[in-house]
């Protein structure tokens, strides 16, 4: 009969454990500014997000070495939401309400952002989101330092339509089945239609998450390309499936000169996992490439390489920088500038001070936070894969272009305000 008596005791223990678990982390020091870092360090997204955590820590270290912000040191609070979307919301709440962080840098996938958005709204927190995404969103509490579709997808397709890009006439829109590829392809389809491409000349194809067998897809692409006219592939395949896709592409003999593939989720970091020799000439569109030459970028790359050595990261000698890392770097610096300007870490004051904030970024431009729409004005680069895994910039915009979070190619968006709802 011990079981029954245990009931009460165990209930008490549970409660005690709960109390211990939840209250052990309360704010300690007041002479630092706490900064939350919310990137998955385990689970499927760790592949991409760990590098962003390192970049954030490095940038914080850099700012601290120069005296911090408002004379206070920044104190990073790193948590691991483990690629689990509900856990993202829980950890966001923990960072804001328990740890009292002034700002959070984090998230990669759209679903993680969607999961934390209500939390930031409710608690009036501040999130910097560093990854290219599908748009269709404008939150008061979020600053988007990655690209909106018009800063990445549309210029890439325009390039492929141009003479230098190969004057593509037929299009394969290939992606992993989730919201970013879906929205991007929806926008691109509308864009292509506006440019006079017929529906029959567009093939849309989706694969499940973690798909690793691209034989059938490649065969389909070949078949489609064999029906005449120059074909190009626009790939929004999610990080993990890219290696099998590109390996299959290389071995199946689809060369970039015949059927170029332009990718929006493949950067230097992803190419580290692939043998790039068969992929020379395939393209990627980003707002930053490691191969861009300017003093800021040289300093940024050196900073990260030194950091990797200092922290003894695995494969420290071969680390690369990429677009989301640059966006993280810009975001943290801009936030620090805004705090200096606002003389406060108060969310509303910082949001006001963020408007029009400028920063000389590693992409070679002095880029600006839009006064209203919480997105950066960013330059667009199109690069071809080189044999060493870097990109060769073959086209770029003259200067930074303004983000359109509400794409004009989606019906109904013309009525949208280009700034967050304030209510």
């Amino acid at each position, binding site marked *: 009969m011990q079981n029954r008596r245990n009931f009460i005791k165990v209930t008490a223990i549970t409660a005690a454990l709960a109390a211990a678990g939840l209250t052990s982390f309360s704010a300690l020091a007041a002479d630092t500014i706490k900064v939350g870092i919310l990137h998955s360090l385990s689970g499927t997204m760790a592949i991409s997000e760990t590098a962003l955590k390192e970049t954030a820590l490095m940038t914080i270290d850099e700012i601290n070495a120069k005296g911090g912000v408002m004379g206070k040191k920044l104190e990073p609070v790193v948590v691991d939401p483990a690629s689990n979307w509900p856990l993202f919301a829980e950890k966001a709440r923990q960072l804001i309400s328990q740890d009292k962080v002034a700002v959070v840098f984090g998230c990669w996938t759209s679903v993680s952002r969607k999961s934390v958005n209500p939390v930031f709204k409710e608690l009036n927190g501040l999130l910097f989101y560093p990854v290219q995404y599908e748009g269709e969103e404008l939150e008061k509490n979020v600053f988007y330092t990655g690209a909106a579709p018009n800063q990445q997808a549309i210029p890439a397709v325009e390039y492929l339509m141009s003479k230098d890009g190969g004057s593509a006439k037929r299009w394969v829109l290939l992606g992993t089945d989730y919201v970013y590829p879906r929205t991007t392809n929806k926008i691109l389809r509308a864009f292509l239609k506006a440019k006079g491409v017929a529906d029959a000349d567009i093939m849309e194809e989706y694969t499940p998450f973690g798909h690793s*067998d691209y034989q059938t897809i490649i*065969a389909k692409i070949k078949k489609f390309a064999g029906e005449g006219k120059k074909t190009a592939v626009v790939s929004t395949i999610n990080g993990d499936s890219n290696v099998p896709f590109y390996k299959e592409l290389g071995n199946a*003999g689809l060369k970039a000169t015949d059927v170029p593939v332009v990718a929006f989720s493949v950067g230097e970091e992803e190419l580290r996992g692939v043998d790039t020799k068969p992929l020379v000439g395939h393209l990627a569109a980003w707002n930053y490439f490691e191969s861009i030459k300017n003093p800021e970028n040289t300093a940024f790359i050196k900073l990260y390489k030194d950091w990797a050595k200092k922290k003894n990261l*695995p494969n420290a000698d071969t680390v690369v920088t990429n677009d989301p890392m640059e966006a993280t770097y810009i975001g943290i610096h801009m936030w620090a500038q805004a705090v200096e300007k606002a003389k406060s870490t108060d969310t509303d004051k910082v949001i006001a001070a963020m408007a029009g904030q400028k920063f000389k970024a590693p992409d070679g431009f002095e880029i600006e936070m839009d006064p209203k729409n919480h997105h950066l004005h960013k330059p667009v680069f199109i690069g*071809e894969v080189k044999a060493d895994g870097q990109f060769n910039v073959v086209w770029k915009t003259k200067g930074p272009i303004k983000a359109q979070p509400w794409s004009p190619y989606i019906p109904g968006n013309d009525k949208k305000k280009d700034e967050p709802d304030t209510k």
Partner: protein
Amino acid sequence: MKHVLVALILACLTLCASAALDPLLVRQLAAEDSDEKIAAIEALAKSGDPEAVAILKQLDEGTLKDEQGEDITINNRVRGKIAEAMAALRLFDPDKGARLVAVKELLANIDPGMAPMLAKAREHEGEPSIKALLDQAYALATIRAADPAARLAAVKALATSGDANVRTLLLDYYWNKTAEPDLAIRRAAFASYLEVQQRIEIADLVGKVFSGLSLGSILLLAALGLAITYGVMGVINMAHGELLMIGAYATYAMQGLFRAHLPGYVDWYVLAAVPVAFFAAATVGILLERTVIRRLYGRPLETLLATWGLSLILIQAARVFFGAQNVEVANPTWMSGGIEVLPSIVLPLNRIVIIGFSLFVLSLVWVLMNKTRVGLFVRAVTQNRPMAGCVGVPTSRVDTLAFGLGAGIAGLGGVALSQIANVGPDMGQGYIVDSFLVVVVGGVGQLAGAVWAALGLGVIAKFLEGWTGAVIAKIAVLVFVIIFIQKRPQGIFALKGRFVEN
């Protein structure tokens, strides 16, 4: 647009009589505008000068530098033009292989202007296979010739093609009355179209069967080790995927070792990785068996939980040692590229090698299980553990050996996976559900069952995928397995014998 005309540093050129080449043309290669670059390339190619070929080759490889010592960058369009220009030059190369590559390159971009050159090449060509391709190329170039006889000949010649582009072209040719008023030629075009169409359809089928077999062989390699451990011990090893991962990382490590110390033999690192991966995974497997799984015999459902914990630890260990990012494992040159059955169907070499490798592993396991004393013991324990123990089989040692063997085979699976998919900490997780399905469908402890299940599931998945798309195909296969198990709860090959359940 400002012309950046810079002198080129061309060390090799200064040796020879560079006077033969127009230096202005060479400079023009560094122009920023692609049109100018292309004009220069075409002019250089026309000269037919071997020096020009050398320069174009450098430009293609990205090693050509301008006056400032910066690499001259080119884009796909320029790259395509270089390939075309070089192909035209190489059509008369003494080397057979070079000529073959050249014709294939040209076939993609034929224009009527090439007809005289192709005719010349056709006359000179002695090799039948290349000549056949040249015939097609010539046909493509003359299909809109003014002479109806030439058009008819061209249309008829194209019947031997297997290229989807040619198929489209022939069909368009048949329908387009204004471009081709002669009905007889249009009919001939349609007849050729049907022939090409049939050839492509057969090739499609071959391609589908091949991709199904390829997927099946990968499933088999992933599941074979599991079939053994599960058969012998009834242990659900959730860390099986991580044993695959260890095999793949062992391959990665061997690649690094070869690159650092035996750069001349880099292509053979895969062969060296086979035993290394086997023993690395087997060692880890034996360690797991000795320390954890051994203590859980008789509690198979709990083994599931413990091995799940082990898998978490192994994944995180990989993350700490090798980084969270995927690592690069390159196909050796003899596994890169593919065999072209038809222009529309290329069977990738890495997949062919893996199918062969899975046969090799399978026969190895078969010999081990059926021709050796250890194999006899393993089978005995699989069928009836207490009885085997009674007649003197050292069951506990057999368990360790079988687990090591299963783990080692998983390691071999990892070598194969490293050649087609990601190598990263999470890679094993993606194969766990599939491997279990193969084992369950095949029947416990049955090698033949695992083989049939793997190949069957692979081929079904691939045929469905062509029809329904990847997501639905995968769901359909899972539902199929669930229904199949209802009908045959013991798998394809159930162990025969008189058992009372419980």
